């Protein structure tokens, strides 16, 4: 049963976290030398007359004191308005709304593929520790963890082009609801690349938990009672090994929501990472602030979801 006091405390903590993130991002952005005018005009900003500069500062909304800018932005957020992009004049809400589904889908698909492969391979390795399949799987997981995403992503794109004359579709993003095949042609390959490290992490955790649980007294008892190997694995080993796997999956999923920028660059996907990267380069303050806030909200939500899952999986945690 849901503990409302616990949930309320978590929600309050989340709000404080989000406010902290907002203020930190706001301050850090403004301590970096240069502003939207410098980012936009480069050295040409040095050719502006004082009147031209004043006009542009007003245009970009950076002629007001920083606390007035911060207050205006927080007030806007409270009313659901994330502001307008300084670069293209579009609403930040619309920019986030178009890029968020890309990143969420990328993260979900990567997590699904990574978790499926990670658990299956982890059990495969853990069920026969020390055997060839174990060594092979562990070796593969080390390689998966060691290869940087940009190397793997570039290699996939290059091999597809060289060997199969194929390049993943980089046109307008096709939502899953419009065309499954069209969507997959854009999302599947980058998801596979992201899933490699994800699977490697899950595999290693699954294997170690599996080996540890398989040696537990209650497992020996269950086996002694004559339960089938499959039932022993599902009900007594995997179930107890699930909590660390869920924790790991939740944390990794959270990082994926804000950390897909390199893969989005390589596969030209218009996701949150690219939106944030471009906005930082352009000193597009409202977009950076809005994007970071949304990523932080998602991260907090994923953490909350993981905590809720703990309580469902392991009744002992409800007491605490």
């Amino acid at each position, binding site marked *: 049963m849901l503990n409302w006091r616990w949930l309320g405390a978590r929600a309050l903590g989340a709000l404080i976290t989000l406010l902290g993130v907002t203020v930190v991002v706001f301050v850090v952005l403004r301590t970096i030398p240069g502003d939207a005018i410098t980012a936009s005009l480069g050295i040409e900003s040095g050719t502006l007359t004082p009147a031209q500069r004043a006009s542009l500062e007003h245009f970009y909304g950076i002629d007001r004191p920083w606390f007035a800018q911060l207050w205006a932005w927080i007030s806007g957020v409270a009313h659901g308005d994330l502001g307008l992009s300084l670069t293209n004049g579009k609403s930040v809400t619309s920019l986030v709304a178009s890029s968020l589904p890309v990143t969420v889908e990328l993260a979900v698909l990567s997590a699904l593929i990574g978790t499926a492969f990670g658990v299956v391979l982890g059990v495969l390795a853990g069920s026969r520790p020390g055997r060839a399949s174990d060594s092979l799987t562990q070796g593969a997981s080390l390689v998966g963890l060691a290869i940087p995403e940009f190397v793997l992503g570039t290699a996939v794109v290059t091999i597809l082009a060289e060997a199969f004359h*194929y390049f993943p579709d980089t046109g307008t993003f096709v939502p899953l609801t419009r065309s499954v095949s069209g969507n997959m042609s854009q999302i599947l390959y980058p998801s596979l690349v992201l899933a490699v490290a994800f699977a490697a992490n899950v595999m290693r955790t699954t294997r170690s938990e599996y080996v540890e649980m398989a040696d537990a007294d209650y497992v020996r008892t269950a086996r002694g009672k004559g339960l089938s190997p499959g039932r022993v694995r599902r009900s007594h080993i995997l179930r107890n090994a699930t909590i660390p796997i869920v924790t790991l999956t939740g944390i990794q999923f959270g990082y994926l929501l804000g950390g897909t920028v390199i893969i989005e660059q390589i596969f030209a996907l218009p996701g949150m990472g690219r939106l944030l990267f471009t906005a930082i380069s352009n000193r597009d303050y409202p977009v950076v602030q809005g994007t970071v806030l949304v990523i932080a909200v998602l991260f907090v939500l994923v953490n909350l979801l993981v905590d809720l899952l703990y309580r469902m999986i392991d009744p002992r945690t409800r007491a605490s």
Partner: protein
Amino acid sequence: MTPPTPRGGVRFRTGAVALTATVTVAAGLAACSPSGSQNSSSGGSTFVVARTGDIDKLDPHLATAFQTQQTLGLVYSTLVKTSPTGQIQPDLATKWTTSSDGKTLDFTLRSGVTWQDGSPFTSKDVKASIERILDQKTGAVSRSNLVAIKKVDAPDDTSVVLHLSQPSASLLYSLTTVNSSIESAKDISAGTVGKKPNGTGAFAWNAWNPGQQVVLTGNAKYFGGAPKIKKLEFRVIPDESSILSGMKASAFQLGLISDPGVARQAGKADAYSLVKQPALAYHVLMLNGRKGPLKNQQVRQAISCAVDRNQVMQTAAYGDGTVTGPITSPAFAYSPTDGLPCTPGDTAKAKSMLAAAGYAQGFSLTTIVETGEYATAGAEAQNLQSQLAKIGVKLTLKQLSTGPYVSAWLDADYDAAVALNGGSYDPFLMYGRYFTSGGSLAKPAGLNSSTLADLLTQGNATSDDGKRQGTFRNLQKELLTESPWVWTFRSDDYYLVGSNVHGFTPRPDELLSSLTATS
């Protein structure tokens, strides 16, 4: 003893195999899906140009990113334009005359031209556009280059007269830039400029999906003839290696890259050809002649003499490019070394010059280097560091991202700066703002020189080609003698041109105007 573990590994192996097979089949199907396959070829409906960056504005008067200039340069026209070799040619103006005192320019405009919204183009549009650029509230990029214009008259629909405060030969060149595009007077008065581009160029605005693509459509009413490309898409592919892969898979018709390393990987392929085009932009080590030892001309000359330009180019750009002197304008090509008291790379001579200047033990220079903006900056800096170390000049490299780099440079808060500077078809536009008295970038340029200022002023004051050639030849020589900076090389721009693309010709100024004649 190894504890017994539940059996069933076979079933899990089967599961693993099934999972792998499922993902493999899905990947194969994704590759076979219609939208996952390639774009239409140039003979089809869409011509796709892949490039790493997106446009950042829709107002040509404010555009500085070259992606924005490339795109809006196809939508808008200018009064006059340049040929690839830098000759002034008609665009919206069919002819022009300059008064004998050089203070009045009379333009005759093309008749029958319409804006992409269907309204007629007249001299009122030209007057409104130039006045908008000159208005300080606009923040227009080319204002400083057009500031000699004191009044614009539009006596009839096809005539425009510019009254200047002083003769300015560079003014015509300034009018050729995208930043001097002619906008509709109606859009200017309605305040809609920068919201939806409405030009008189070969392509009409269609759509902008920020961060993904810009789509233009061929303007059937273009006064220069309807382009063969009916639909033109600029697609943002942030990674140059991905652009190369896309070209190999024939996913794009044209790929724009700048990294010599990627160009080297491109090699030869059936799907495309690699075209190299020397750019007007030049690589340079700027010296702050207002600081420490660099105030001494002999010291600056010694640094200039110590640097083997070809070695910098070989190291940073795999030899792609051209060793250059200060002026890169194609019509003003002079010796890159005439004026230097040595042969570049002569370390012994450089050391003796430093000793003669009283710096035999050398000194250190804080050198700012921009990271992330262009591919060769780091390699150039390291090579210069290694070459100058031989004469005892230690470059302390300070790597900065664009914002901090630009801020430090504009504040002249540097001893030396590794830079890639834009060039121009007109030498005055290249150096007037750095080395004339009151030049808008005189402070960061690092040197006051009345000789340089006089030569620039003289070159800009006459339209006589012979006099301009003589003056700018002397300017180049004087720049090398005074050595405010060390000019190294002009790099190549790289174009991956699809094998089924015809008529595309790159330009030194990186504009894509030949797309109007490409099929």
